[in-house]
């Protein structure tokens, strides 16, 4: 199996408090810790496991600036065979469709059986996989949490649906799948693993190498653009308990007792 996994470098929400910058034009990016999008890690792990079972290769690809190289290298340390960075000034400001257009042009240069994306990334849109599949005219399934190889023409997949149930489908190859967390347990990547791939060359493909019409990507083509960021006010907000930790414990116990929270 030849497998391509699309990955993205994102601010790590487990490590960061995300806040809006003073002008509201963006989030505050000064001290952010970046990492690979969590969903993508599961996608890469799944690709590696399939390759180890049936042979083939795993390629990881990312659209971004030079800093995205670090996430490609991290996924190569996990076991991906090859990394490709798609980078060009003309790509800056692309919307989802623009990103899918860039990725598609890389995919058709290869001969892939499977293309994976994470089910979603930092912006929660979950759109790249479905767009790619429609552009390629390949079948697509989202929220995949199980993959079983049937033969070299088709696979069986499980999708996560409401209530913890699982929808089982058969899907022909080549196809695009968006991978949900929990499908596997992504392996740990140590410093040694990263060092091993530190000097592997990662090719960079720009608009001309990809044959992408620069009018179809980037800011000029984007039909979706962010106006501003703000902090949502969903409800009235919690009453925050004040005082020392012991005082907070005391107050909370009283509240829990009054609300039937202690039997």
């Amino acid at each position: 199996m030849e497998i391509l996994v699309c990955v993205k470098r994102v601010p790590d929400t487990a490590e960061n408090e995300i806040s809006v910058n003073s002008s509201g034009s963006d989030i505050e990016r000064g001290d952010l810790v970046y990492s690979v999008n969590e969903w993508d890690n599961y996608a890469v792990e799944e690709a590696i496991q399939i390759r180890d079972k049936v042979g083939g290769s795993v390629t990881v690809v990312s659209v971004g600036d030079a800093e995205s190289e670090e996430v490609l290298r991290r996924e190569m340390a996990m076991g991906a065979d090859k990394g490709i960075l798609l980078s060009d000034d003309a790509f800056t400001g692309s919307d989802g469709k623009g990103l899918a257009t860039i990725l598609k042009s890389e995919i058709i240069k290869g001969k892939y059986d499977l293309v994976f994306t994470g089910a979603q990334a930092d912006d929660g849109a979950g759109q790249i996989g479905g767009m790619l599949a429609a552009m390629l005219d390949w079948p697509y399934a989202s929220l995949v949490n199980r993959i079983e190889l049937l033969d070299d023409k088709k696979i069986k997949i499980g999708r996560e649906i409401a209530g913890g149930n699982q929808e089982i489908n058969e899907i022909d190859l080549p196809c695009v799948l968006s991978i949900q967390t929990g499908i596997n347990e992504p392996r740990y990547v140590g410093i040694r693993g990263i060092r091993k791939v530190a000097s592997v060359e990662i090719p960079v493909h720009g608009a001309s190498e990809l044959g992408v019409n620069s009018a179809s990507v980037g800011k000029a083509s984007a039909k979706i653009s962010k106006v501003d960021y703000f902090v949502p006010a969903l409800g009235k907000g919690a009453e925050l308990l004040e005082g020392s930790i012991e005082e907070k414990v005391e107050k909370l116990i009283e509240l829990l007792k009054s609300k039937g929270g202690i039997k």
Partner: protein
Amino acid sequence: MALQIFAYILHKDGVIDDTALEMVAAAGKIDPAASLTAIVVGSKTDAVCNSLIASFKEVWKIDNDSLSYPNAEVIRGLLTRVIPKGSAVIFALDPFGMDIGPGLSIKLEGVYVPDAVDFDGIEGGKLKAVRQEYSGQVSTHVLCDISGGAVITIRPGSFRAVEPGGADGTVIDKTADATTGGLPGGARRYVEVLQAEVGDVDITKSEILVSVGRGIGEQENIDIIKELAKAVGGDVSCSRPIVDAKWLEKSRQVGTSGQTVKPKVYMALGISGSFQHLGGIKGSPFIVAVNKNPKAPIFQVAEIGVVEDLLEFVPLLTEKINEMK
């Protein structure tokens, strides 16, 4: 020409989903001047269609025995055949909407507006949508050029359902238009639905839930949650990352992809409060949140918040409750 909006109706066992009437509100907010048509795809859908005519002027029906289970690849092909280019199509953001939306936007040559929680006006074909990013920690206004058409997914529960009445609509059978040439999407074939495993504890019946999330850090720390649950006489539940890490069983997961619970008291410990998680909490329980990140969205829905490291706070709380007994 006025914008034409189509609302894709989710339904099950002849009953429309709650989101159907939320779509009426969403459509009104996208463009009050637009015409609104419901689309019902399935098998034996007459009851579903009839229940919509009080809310929609037009109800398009695509009905075929082979459509009893909603396969997004098939339905995407059907909709591409009947929906005029330039229209806006709304789906609820659920596993079906996520499956069909992005690809349909490509086929209809429109933009994709994912996971809208509100709309803030339309001007010159540009729709201003409100979205959330970074697990709900920040919101953003997004300007979407829908002049060439759009596929929009709306977050369930974000729009207040419009009570049925007054539309006096008609049902129009579009089956022939949609299925001439056979059913599309044969490269992905539905097989079956596997029901979730039943666990040792049924958290949907619990009155007190002590729920743990990613903030717990390590698997060994789950014990402090179990001890607190024992002290208060509640059951342990959790958010998705805990199940993904296989630290607790799937049957204990609260959320749209897990269980829907309706306790009296819900303690969210180290849970950020994604909308998928909150979607699994019903019946307005008394929510207590403990999280060291004061910006965690859970604090916006909780009654009581404690900004502390739960690894310090929870053992102390357990100890004091046990002393008291």
